[in-house]
């Protein structure tokens, strides 16, 4: 587990996070947007795990909390999407404008 340089895993984490950001910008379907957010959370988890041999086991413990928060977020977010779909019959991001401005 020591023969993978830290920079490789951190680079992979940065690339995955950037792909997630690009997905959030370019997609319009709210569920796909949500999946891009999950990808970004995963990239952050990867950075935590990659750094945990150097900064202590706290990194791996924190990944647990991130996964728990991601699960809670997915449950609430998908419920919001079902509620919006019931009113607008669509999941396009232009329908999620009630709190935007």
């Amino acid at each position, binding site marked *: 587990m020591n023969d993978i340089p830290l920079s490789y895993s951190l680079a992979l984490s940065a690339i995955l996070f950037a792909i997630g950001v690009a997905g959030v910008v370019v997609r319009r379907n709210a569920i796909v947007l949500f999946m891009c957010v999950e990808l970004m959370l995963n990239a952050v988890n990867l950075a935590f795990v990659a750094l*945990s041999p*150097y900064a202590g086991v706290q990194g791996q413990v924190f990944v647990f909390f991130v996964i728990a928060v991601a699960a809670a977020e997915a449950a609430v977010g998908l419920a919001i999407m079902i509620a919006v779909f019931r009113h607008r019959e669509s999941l396009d991001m232009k329908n999620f404008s009630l709190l935007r401005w």
Partner: protein
Amino acid sequence: MQITFTQILFFFFAACAVGSAVAMVTRRNPVACAMWLIGTFFSVAAIYTLLGAFFIGIVQILVYAGAIMVLFLFVIMLLNQGNDYEPDMRGTAWKIMAGGAALLIIAFLGRVFGGEIPRPLGMEAGPQALATSTAERGVVGLIGVPLYTDYMVALQATAILLLVAVVGAVVLAKRKV
């Protein structure tokens, strides 16, 4: 530099993760997006195990690929997404902006990650100490012991958070409360 078998595996799974993440962003059908995202999660789980976090890798597959993505697929199919009359992708200007944002994020993270490795926080830091405590407490105990001693309050707060989230999801998704 000698390229070891672990590094070859790492590059293979990293290529799988990046490839399926790009496919996830570019596919139009939401079900295909979800499937590619599951592929990314499996590749990242394999990388976790290569980095020595075996339990996190298993939890990644169980919780992310097993539970969260089933929820996503369930909602996608429930709401009948993936029609042709509502374009899912934005126009060219947005695509250029997305590429710019991605490059900016990569540059920023490269700047952050390129700095000094943070000083170890606790007593047990460094790859050798991690290997020792894994041998001492086992793969699960490595995370479980600090989770149930040092992070007890955070664990209880997470339990409350999950309860609130479940109640909130039911309230939001129900037709009449």
